[in-house]
């Protein structure tokens, strides 16, 4: 067979197996290696809520999709060019994601009678049953080959089986002409201290997988994906959204000179932010793993009162628990960043799946007139800037800020050109200065006439003793149920948040002409998909993306006025569209929604936008 090496612009690889098969690691390794090689990339882990879901079942399948390209890659890709399926269940769950000309690589050894039955196959041929028999099928006895490769390694049989993923990764590296050196280096670093004995076996099985793929003659072509061209010069790294969120908060801590305090309770998919912050005590970060979600936010509110940059991190159900305390932060007018990495809801919902359905809760989910500043991140790397901005707004406007991330962003990763901290602005909280004149008392809720922001006096500052709390107060900080005072304070708290818009960057078109019949609108983690869709449709499609949800950028109304109708694409039942309809009544605002716990497909967006064009 004549072997060809084909130059591909981009390829999508989906690794799928049992949740204990190491697919997340395999996918991450492939992604990191490609990033260092210079490819643009985007990743999407798709895994079950159970750590070890029932073995061999469709519900227990864990997947990791990597999209690599020789240009900027905006999404993890709708469909894959290579599906690696470690068992029948993985094939069954993922066959629908294969492109027409995809390759499917399976471990033949797992396709025995028992495995087929567990996955619910009713015929003997899983490929015809799923209608993918015309794809390029690579059916290899991976388990047997891994055993053979490591029979002299001295490892016990169970440990040997765990190396199957490395064999498969070796095969994938052959198919995409990836050098193995990066993975060798990774293995050496990872296992050097604790398990040096597994380094050589893993290297061997990877190498054997690579050679096996080269020898079997069933892989018609291999591919290269050239490093991305026209990439801005600089130092790059791969970063996940949760890591970027943590680092953005640390950056805000440095730029404000205030120590970071994070009070949080572990919850999927937000936990990695707390874990990441816990690693960086060398930057003065204090993390408190609280007894519950409420303690998470309340310790943060206490820390804020005492002068730290205070943060709490959570996901939907945790945000529900924090509602009352968020109201306290609004009332006490204390800076606080609440990070919500959204997942499918309501209730426990779909813990490991992505959604944008907490927007209403972020905007309105509290008792009383309780305005909340809301910022949204739009890509894994953008989580850094979004977190930095959320903290800056909180500290400079003396208000809690809710930062919306999404499971898709938090777990997803992309290459990121490392910024220099000197290019980021200083953060200047409105601290009281000097000392009060003799006999005068500090008025904690007296406001700056321009911004309506109150001043911040920290416990420990002589002469500024004052009380804050959840009860309504006057500007002087005295308890009051006076009707006029309450009306005034309600109005001022709302106007204070509204005036944040003066500090926000203007809304800018991401694509298309400045005016026209249709404007496509997105917010949050759908950015990459919508951008890819409008690019596919050409330069005629106008698109804006909102990073700031409350308040909206000051020029929003003006931008909207230049378009006939507006199509809001979001992963919920239309919450942002409803919010915009309320703010801009009379505007023709339409909805395109998906609530499946999955990101948009670019193809769905293209079709939906075309329908409105």
């Amino acid at each position, binding site marked *: 067979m004549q072997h060809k090496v084909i130059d591909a612009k981009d390829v999508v690889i989906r690794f799928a197996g049992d949740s204990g098969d190491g697919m997340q690691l395999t996918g991450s390794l492939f992604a*990191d290696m490609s*990033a*260092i090689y*210079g490819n643009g990339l985007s990743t999407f882990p798709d895994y079950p809520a159970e750590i070890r879901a029932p073995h061999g079942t469709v519900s227990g399948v864990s997947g990791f999709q990597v999209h690599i390209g020789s240009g900027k890659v905006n999404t993890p890709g709708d469909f894959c060019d290579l599906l690696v399926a470690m068992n029948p269940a993985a094939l069954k769950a993922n066959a629908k994601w294969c492109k027409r000309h995809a390759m499917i690589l399976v471990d033949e050894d797992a396709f025995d009678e028992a495995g087929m039955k567990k996955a619910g196959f009713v015929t003997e041929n899983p490929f015809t049953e799923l209608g993918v028999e015309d794809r390029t099928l690579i059916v290899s006895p991976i388990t047997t080959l891994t055993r053979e490769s490591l029979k002299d390694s001295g490892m016990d049989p169970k440990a040997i089986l765990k190396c199957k993923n490395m064999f498969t990764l070796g095969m994938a590296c052959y198919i995409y002409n990836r050098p193995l050196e990066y993975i060798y280096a990774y293995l050496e670093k990872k296992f050097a201290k604790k398990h040096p004995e597994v380094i050589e076996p893993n290297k061997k099985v990877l190498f054997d997988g690579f050679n096996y793929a080269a020898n079997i003659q069933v892989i018609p072509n291999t591919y290269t994906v050239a490093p991305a061209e026209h990439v*801005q*010069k*600089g*130092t*790059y*790294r*791969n970063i996940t959204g949760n890591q970027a969120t943590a*680092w953005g908060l640390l*950056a805000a801590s*440095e730029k404000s000179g205030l120590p970071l*305090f994070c*009070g949080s309770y572990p919850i999927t998919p937000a936990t990695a932010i707390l874990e990441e912050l816990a690693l*960086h*005590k*060398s*930057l*003065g970060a*204090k993390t*408190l793993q*609280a*007894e519950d979600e*409420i*303690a998470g936010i*309340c*310790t*943060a*509110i*206490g*820390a*804020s*009162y*005492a*002068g*730290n940059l*205070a943060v709490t991190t959570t996901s939907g159900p945790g945000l529900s628990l924090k509602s009352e*305390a968020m*109201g*306290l932060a609004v009332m*006490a007018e204390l800076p606080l960043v609440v990070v919500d990495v959204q997942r499918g809801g309501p209730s426990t919902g779909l813990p490991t799946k992505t959604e944008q359905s907490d927007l209403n809760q972020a905007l309105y989910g509290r008792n009383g007139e309780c305005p909340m500043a809301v910022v949204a991140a739009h890509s894994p790397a953008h989580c850094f800037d979004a977190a930095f901005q959320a903290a800056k707004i909180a500290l400079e406007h003396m208000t809690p800020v809710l930062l919306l991330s999404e499971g898709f962003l938090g777990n997803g990763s992309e290459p990121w050109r*490392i910024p*220099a*901290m000197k290019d980021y602005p200083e953060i200047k909280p409105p601290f009281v200065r000097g000392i009060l004149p003799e006999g005068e008392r500090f008025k904690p809720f007296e406001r700056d006439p321009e911004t309506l922001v109150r001043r911040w006096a*920290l*416990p*420990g*500052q*002589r002469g*500024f*003793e004052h*009380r*804050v*709390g*959840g*009860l309504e107060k006057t500007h002087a900080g*005295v*308890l009051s149920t006076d009707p006029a005072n309450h009306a005034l304070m309600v109005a001022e708290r709302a106007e204070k948040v509204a005036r944040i818009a003066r500090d926000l960057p203007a809304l800018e078109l991401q694509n298309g002409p400045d005016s026209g019949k249709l404007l496509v609108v997105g917010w949050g983690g759908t950015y990459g998909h919508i951008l890819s869709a409008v690019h596919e449709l050409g330069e005629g499609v106008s698109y804006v993306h909102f990073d700031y949800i409350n308040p909206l950028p000051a020029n929003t109304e003006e931008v909207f006025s230049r378009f006939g109708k507006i199509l809001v694409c979001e992963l919920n039942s239309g919450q942002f569209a409803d919010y915009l309809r309320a703010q801009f009544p009379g505007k023709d605002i339409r909805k395109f929604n998906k609530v499946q716990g999955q990101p948009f497909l670019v193809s769905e967006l293209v079709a939906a936008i075309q329908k409105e064009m």
Partner: protein
Amino acid sequence: MATLTFKDFKSDQEVRWCPGCGDHAVLAALQRALPKVSQALGYDKERYVVVSGIGCSSRLPYYMDTYGFHSIHGRATAVSTGIKVANPWLTVWQACGDGDALAIGGNHFIHAIRRNIDINIILFNNQIYGLTKGQYSPTSKFGAITKTSPYGTVEHPFNPGSLVLGAKGTFFARSLDVELKLNEEIMTAAALHDGCSVMEMLTNCVIFNDGAHKNLSDPAVKADHTIILRQGERMIFGKNRDRGLIYDGRKIRAVRIGEGGFTEEDVLIHDAHSDNIGIHMALADMKGPDYPVALGVIRDVKDITYDDGVRDQVKDVMTKSKIHSVDDLLHSGSTWEVE
């Protein structure tokens, strides 16, 4: 440092508790104790933060001329924890009721004790919900008739002392609202204690649960129904100082000195600093009619505090780590150059 007096801790706010409420006396004791604490530790007034939750007693921060935070129901302990971790230099006092600390805020309460965070918690225990006008609380006696238990409760109350010591609390004291002098002593000892101090103040709600602690506070029976424990002193009580607590090899017993062969030499000596939490639990659990209720500092032992632990760990990692700025962090791990 200026010498502070109780006036320095009195705010200009009108105290709005009911006339005759036990909370007035606890406030007065605190305003008298803090100048002494300040003297002993060299603290200025701005160093104090008074935190509370929701309930009658949680209005206390408004009456103290210090930094104060009147938070939300049950969460005072979490807010106090955040303040202390954020700035361990501050000295944090907390006022909370039996409903606030033991019902809605029970989780935060036990975890603060478990962590041994250095805050001082005054637990106002009037065995009733006062601010909501008379429903039973987690410390109301079994069978208590209240608005939400018109036929009597069918649930057992918490003994706060057992709860604190069960969570391995390092400081627990108990007193009555009317014991002004003892309360000053207890509050001073709590301030000097490095760790989580819980002071249970048995307070009288004149409106909804009047006389709940009468068998402990009534001068006619008080001496026989209570025992004031003092460090290094024998556990002697009774109107005639003729009763004592002894250990019979199995348990603590209340005996009459001079009867049954028991002499003063047999009476136990109180050691709040002892590692033996068993004896402190036994003392905290005592109740009538067989035993006097123990007042005073029951337990006061040294242990690592959470706030010190957090601070020291940050310092330690700062010395060892190679990452000292966000720029260092951004460039740590795997990176690559595009030229």
